[in-house]
């Protein structure tokens, strides 16, 4: 079988050292080795964005990234947002605007939104729509998702 690699990364703010097989996908590493089940798996081919996580602040499809390539990076999943005493403002906005139904796409959308707002704190509707084009939601019709993100634009 394939070789094992030692990697170190920051995972939701905590340092993590792990031994991973060369072919292990980041989504499996996060879900199976770290029980981060908020990372969702759907298309497995970088189409839907359900598996989106932040790698050094950028939104990445964890279904097509190898865990070894996260070596030295900072990885944030939905579990890493907010804190014991509250929700991240993006989570709060999605809640407030009813921007979710089944919720399976939601962690991906929230993290994609985090990344957008980090680089562009006041995106226009066009910019929001463009930025979220890699995330599919089959339930909501996007209207309330766009409204939620618009409400965060400063």
């Amino acid at each position, binding site marked *: 079988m394939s070789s094992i690699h030692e990697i170190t990364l920051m995972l939701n703010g905590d340092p993590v050292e792990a031994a991973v097989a060369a*072919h292990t996908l980041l989504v499996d590493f996060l879900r199976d080795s770290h029980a*981060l*089940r*908020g*990372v*969702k*798996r*759907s*298309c*497995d*081919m970088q*189409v*839907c964005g*359900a598996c989106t996580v932040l790698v050094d602040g950028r939104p990445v499809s964890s279904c097509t990234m190898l865990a070894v390539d996260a070596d030295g990076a900072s990885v944030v*999943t*939905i*579990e890493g*947002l*907010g804190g014991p005493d509250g*929700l991240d403002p993006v*989570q709060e906005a*999605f*809640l407030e605007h*009813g921007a*979710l*139904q*089944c*919720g*399976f*796409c*939601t*962690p991906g959308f*929230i993290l994609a939104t985090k990344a957008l707002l980090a680089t562009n704190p006041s995106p226009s*509707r066009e910019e*929001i*729509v*463009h930025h*979220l*084009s890699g*995330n*599919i*939601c*089959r*339930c*909501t*019709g*996007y*209207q*309330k*998702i*766009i409204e939620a993100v618009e409400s965060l634009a400063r």
Partner: protein
Amino acid sequence: MTKPATDTNAARADLLEKVTGRAVYASDISVPGMAHGRILRSAVPHARIARLDDAAASALDGVVSVLTGEDLPTLAHDRWGLFLNDRPVIAGEKVRYVGEPLALVVAETPEIAEAALDLIDVDYEHLPFVDDATAALAPDAPLLHERHESIADFYFKGQAKPVDGTNIFQNYGVSTGDVDAAERDAAHVFEQTYTFPGISHFAIEPHSVVAAFDGGRLTVWSGAQSPTAVQKVLSRVFGLALSDIRIIVPFVGGGFGGKASVKIEPLVVAAARKAGRPVRVALTLEESMLTCRRLGASITLRTSLDRDGKILAKRGTILLDGGAYADTGPAVAVKAAHCVIGPYDIANLEIEAKAVYTNTVPGAAFRSIGGPQAVWATESQMDEIAEAMSIDPVDLRHRNLLPRGGEILDSLRALDADIGEMLGQAGQAIASLGGGSAAGIAVAATDPGILPLGGSLVRVLADGSITVMSNSVDIGQGVRAVLRAVVAKTLNQDVGSIRVADPDTATAPFDWGTGASRSTVIMGLAVEDAAQDASDQILELAASIFDGAPNDLRLVPGGVARGEDVLSFEDLYHRAFGIDSGEVVGRAMVTPARKGSDFAKSPLFWETAVGTCDVELDEMTGELAVTRYVGVADIGHAINPAGAEGQEEGASVQGIGHALYEQLDYREGQPVNATPVAYRVPAAADVPQHAHTVLIENGDGPGPMGAKGMGEGGILPVAPAIGNALARRYGVRIRDLPMTPERIWRALRERDHDAS
């Protein structure tokens, strides 16, 4: 619209789990000792399996077992179905579509199972195939099933009417009046054919099942919309008592009908039984696309009118492409036949709906079964008629609409909505979005096939927290929020104290299933009745303690009060039971005979919808965009207003997908775009910039607080409203969905050619 605070709060608890990533879905379940299954699928549309050699796969290190057709004889029943006993648990002597499961490898890891699939050798003896419904009707068409075994009243009331020696598995007709005579008298007769393709559900969570035996008892975790249907089919296939089968349904990542009835559960359970271990099978989205789809349709309508634009008669011939196995297709045909009539006053009708087998992915329920297909035809034709007769399309509808209380068919309940008024509201709403001068419009009424059978338990615990047990499944429609709001109101408790447990057949009473927009009404009434039962019991207990009549007492948050005296539930139970523990269990089962309800006639309510939109066409490319969209729905009462609006918005955008680009495409029996990459569903950029939903609430529905069911109707008018807007503004009429740029571009060329 002002939203009562409690309604928003009721929704918040579930949404909170979802935005934090804590919500557990079927694909998140893992159990100790679990092995992983991967499925080998047929590469050909129709063949005998001459040889299937799994020796090398079975010998691979880490492989636990391989389930194949050879294992079928070990089952109590090797085939299952809901209307027809037509589907083998795993392909036996033959395969009937590309993607049909042929073998299921169970291994220590998904990677090993995947690797083992490559080691399985299959020799096919090819058979002629048919991947088109019209061709499947031909006298010499290859037969998918040699004989038909229809089962009555199994999960749906009644039975399918297959035709022996053909591919027809359902044949349903509606006949009233004298269509021939009406056609002779008519001033105008219009005949057109409209087509609608097979469409993928594309629920974002693929089908995922974990099955575990413990001795003779079976537990299944599945994202199933109909847990009790799964339980029943498994009991037949494996010869187990219903009480030995437990179906647990966590949150479900989208259903839309694609997880209704029964899907991969029998297959996964068979694999777990053979492996002697718990087995998890989590499909990829691509595999889910090979598991089920909406039935495609070809619909010919012949509509006769008098000089004034009054419809005298309608003939409809509906042909549905049901795929390789019938599933709920027979019910789809019935709904399409009813829905194609439209909410119009038509005295003479001849409607025939046939559903046929083809060598394609099995058809299944999908949001408003049969409805979008039928409404696409009916409402497109209404505009074609209006144009030919030089009548305004809205006016033509007004001349023919049934009033509230009118009957679409005498066998069905009278119409419980005023569609004329809804048309008016749609017009106003689109005007206030700054458009509407050349808007397309469509109206629809559909009779959800609801079986009024579902129960629940409401348990009032000693500390004042409340557990609701129900088998209604949260598929994203927010049913738990609705149930919580109903219980809060009935028991006068804070919504925050109420928890709705995961559906679990071991603990919650029977419910027919989550679909057909039924949960708000049926489960809503069941929890309302159960809460009322709990309330009666609590007041009874309290009366003995307060030494008064139950009538002097009332429930207050956390307890019971008489005048200013308040007794907490804990103190009440303490005094009644001797310890400060215990609980009161309210129970209810809604049945067709429920007191105070009129469930004798179907449907329990009509799901009505009006859609209107403006479109913008790039005439160079044929690219069509919906710029404004308004949907109007009469839902009786919005128990969860934000949720109700979200359902309508989601339905309309799904409808835009159906209208403009979605189509499961077949060439030579091969699905050419059944992958998430090739199949396009709407993205954020495809959403109309200006959209609005109008909810009509007259409190006149049969559900709690006067609610009607909802969530499906919104998809019905979308495609014809878009097609009508395109025709009205740009002079091209498309009769075949989807309205792709290529189709529109060709139509534009023809238009210009005809004009010159």
